[in-house]
């Protein structure tokens, strides 16, 4: 098979139903009809007042839902996919919603939105990408399929059938029961998948023979051509191939010749490989708007599980999350959530999302939820016998998320370089928890840095620690009293006293190139209350401030 194109195809029967089932397993076993989400049909119909049940005096609606069904459909919307249970009770494809509900009162009608479908299709592509670098997502005659390059698959598996089985099993693990076909061309692979019922392989040069008993509709002829062929009594592909090529071209024109080529399994369209994704998105539109946190987290758990499984397919981890909440009133909340350490563990990611939702709950009921994860490759780290290992990345990410929920995301991090020349400027950056190698020379000992102090007069058994400043944020407003032009008394919030010693001033000017320049005179003062303070005279605002106490 070397040198010959071999194409694989993933096809999911009833893809809309499978896509919905993937993000909402609760619909399993129930009669479900999927209708298309029509553009512009955003009318929300309030119905089912009987569904509104109250809980005591709080009148909170059960299950945290509003009781308002958000439907983007009308009675004329057409059923596009059906569950087996719905089919058993008599609902059929292309029925209107009104007809279907008349047949089955318990029918669950769900709208499939484009984003949920795209999530399922992207998952199929992710599955294909586990065995092939070249993967194409295509819509053929209204069906979404995924093609992948199978050339050289002998390096991976003993046979193409085994490869197809592996791909099918992986798709099943992602919640998508896919049928897999392998053949010489995209067309043949798609037909093989659709006719296989699981796994179908058409060996090289056997395409025509395998196509012969199949119905012509599988070649997707245009309606006019299909009607002509039907009027000629042609039902099978083999019937068409039995006709002379010249006569078909003469009577049916170029479209007839094209159809004949397709009947032989010839398809020259190349595989258009997609780029490897860096962001993985999962979305679901809810049947009922959710008000309370617990049901919302329950929905988030399903989405995050799907996201984590997709990341695991690529061996990637999630570095950050983007949470999108579609609110009941038509509003939208988009929030970027940082993950302290990249992880693919759904539990950790859920903790991050939950911590955020507990900290900043959405003000309104949530109608739809989307989550996008930015994927990164985890760098392997070699641990050291003699170095501290630090916390596990997943644990660290969960801990930072919990702390951010308690204190606010801007109050946790690592000290960072501030983009300011002011002495009191501070900044925080993300805490990565990376342990750097220990200092071989310093051995952790603190050395004094003050010039000449404590070198000769200090006792030998003394602990040396450079002075620290306890900052006042914001700087404390001071009342200053002078005597003969010298500082005599300083009073601030919670401290004050007569000046015992004073050092300074040190003049500091800066940021004169910006909108808010500063010019200060700094003093170190020891007060009679026992504290040694760093105070300054703001020359521009003509006021005194203390920005810290030495300790």
């Amino acid at each position, binding site marked *: 098979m070397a040198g010959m194109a071999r194409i694989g195809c993933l096809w999911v029967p009833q893809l809309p139903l499978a896509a919905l089932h993937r993000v909402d397993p609760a619909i399993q076993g129930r009669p479900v009809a999927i209708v298309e989400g029509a553009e512009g049909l955003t009318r929300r119909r309030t119905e089912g007042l009987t569904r509104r049940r109250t809980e005591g005096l709080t009148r909170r609606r059960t299950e945290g839902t509003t009781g308002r069904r958000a439907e983007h459909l009308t009675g004329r919307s057409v059923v596009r996919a059906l569950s087996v249970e719905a089919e058993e009770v008599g609902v059929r494809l292309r029925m209107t919603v009104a007809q279907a509900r008349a047949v089955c009162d318990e029918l669950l009608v769900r709208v499939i939105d484009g984003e949920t479908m795209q999530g399922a299709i992207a998952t199929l592509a992710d599955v294909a990408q586990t065995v092939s670098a070249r993967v194409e997502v295509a819509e053929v005659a209204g069906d979404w399929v995924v093609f992948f390059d199978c050339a050289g698959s002998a390096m991976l598996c003993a046979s193409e059938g085994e490869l197809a089985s592996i791909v099918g099993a992986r798709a099943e693990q992602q919640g998508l029961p896919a049928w897999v076909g392998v053949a010489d061309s995209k067309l043949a692979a798609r037909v093989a998948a659709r006719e296989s019922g699981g796994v179908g392989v058409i060996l090289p040069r056997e395409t025509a023979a395998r196509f012969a008993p199949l119905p012509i509709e599988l070649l997707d002829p245009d309606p006019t051509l299909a009607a002509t062929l039907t009027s000629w009594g042609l039902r099978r592909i083999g019937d068409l191939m039995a006709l002379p090529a010249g006569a078909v071209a003469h009577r049916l024109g170029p479209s007839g010749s094209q159809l004949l080529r397709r009947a032989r399994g010839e398809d020259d369209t190349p595989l258009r490989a997609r780029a490897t994704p860096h962001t993985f998105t999962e979305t679901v539109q809810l049947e009922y708007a959710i008000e309370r946190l617990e049901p919302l987290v329950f929905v988030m758990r399903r989405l995050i599980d799907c996201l984590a499984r997709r990341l695991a397919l690529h061996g990637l981890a999630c570095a950050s999350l983007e949470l999108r909440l579609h609110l009941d009133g038509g509003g939208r909340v988009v929030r970027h959530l940082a993950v302290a350490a990249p992880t693919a563990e759904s539990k950790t990611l859920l903790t991050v999302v939950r911590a955020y939702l507990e900290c900043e709950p959405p003000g309104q009921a949530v109608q739809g939820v989307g989550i996008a994860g930015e994927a990164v490759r985890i760098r392997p780290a070699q641990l050291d016998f003699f170095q*501290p290992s*630090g*916390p*596990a990345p997943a*644990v*660290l990410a969960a*801990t930072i998320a*919990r*702390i951010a929920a*308690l*204190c606010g995301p801007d*109050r*946790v*991090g*690592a*000290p960072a370089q501030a983009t300011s020349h002011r002495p009191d400027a*501070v900044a*925080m950056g993300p805490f*990565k*928890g*990376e*342990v*750097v*190698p*220990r200092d071989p020379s310093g*051995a*952790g*000992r*603190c050395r*004094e*840095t*003050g*010039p000449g*102090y*404590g070198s000769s007069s*200090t*006792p030998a*058994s*003394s*602990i*040396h*620690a*450079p*002075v*620290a*400043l*306890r*900052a006042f944020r914001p700087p404390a407003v001071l009342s200053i009293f002078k005597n003969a032009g010298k500082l005599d008394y300083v009073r601030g919030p919670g401290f004050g006293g007569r000046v015992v*010693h*004073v*050092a*300074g001033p040190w003049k500091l000017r800066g940021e004169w190139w910006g909108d808010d320049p500063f010019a200060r005179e700094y003093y*170190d003062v*020891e007060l009679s*209350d*026992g504290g*040694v303070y760093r105070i300054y005279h703001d020359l521009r605002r003509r006021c005194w401030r203390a920005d810290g*106490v*030495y*300790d």
Partner: protein
Amino acid sequence: MSSNTAAVLEHLKLTPGLSALAPLEAPRQYIETRLPHLDALLGGGLPCTVTELVGARSSGRTALAHALAASMTKAGELVACVDLPDAFDPEHAALAGVRLPQILWVRPQDVRTALRVTEHVVAAGGFRLVLLDLDQHRGGSPAVWLRLARTATRNGTAVVALGAQRTAGAFASLSLEISRQRVSFSHQGGPCPLFDGLDGRVRLCKSRQAPLNDVGACLVVPAVA
């Protein structure tokens, strides 16, 4: 057992280091601070539980805390600073030798949150030192301190509570009191007077691992350039 074997075993027992080897499963009892005089005062190092560092303003308690953080971060460890008064100054910490990227800095708004954050950090593991700066604040139920002490022991973390007064009470296994002895200013009356630093004394008020003594150790806190 032959007499030679017994003699060898006796010799091994007396070999420095070997007798001190603890079983691998045993939890870490204390953490060496690498400040020799402090380690000597503490009887080996900081215990893996709650330690109180008590001192008034300008006593040098924050300088000692920074010295501990610097020592730990230089050894490659991670340190968390739960900074209730929002007083941590990264510039002076860096001058003291603290490696800032290894510091998890949290600024909670109240005592209750500060203690919860400390619990989360200690429970995460991997942080060898947690500085809980409470300053003038007091609070925390005994149950919280007990939980904190137990989690710290289990995860091998030293929790150092800085404050103006003792807060952990009976749940602190070690208590250090720092008192200021002297403030040094030089060139007073001259054209350029300077603040040179502080002198203090570190005294062991309570310890479960070292004998108490009234002498303590000198704390020299020079001003930094």
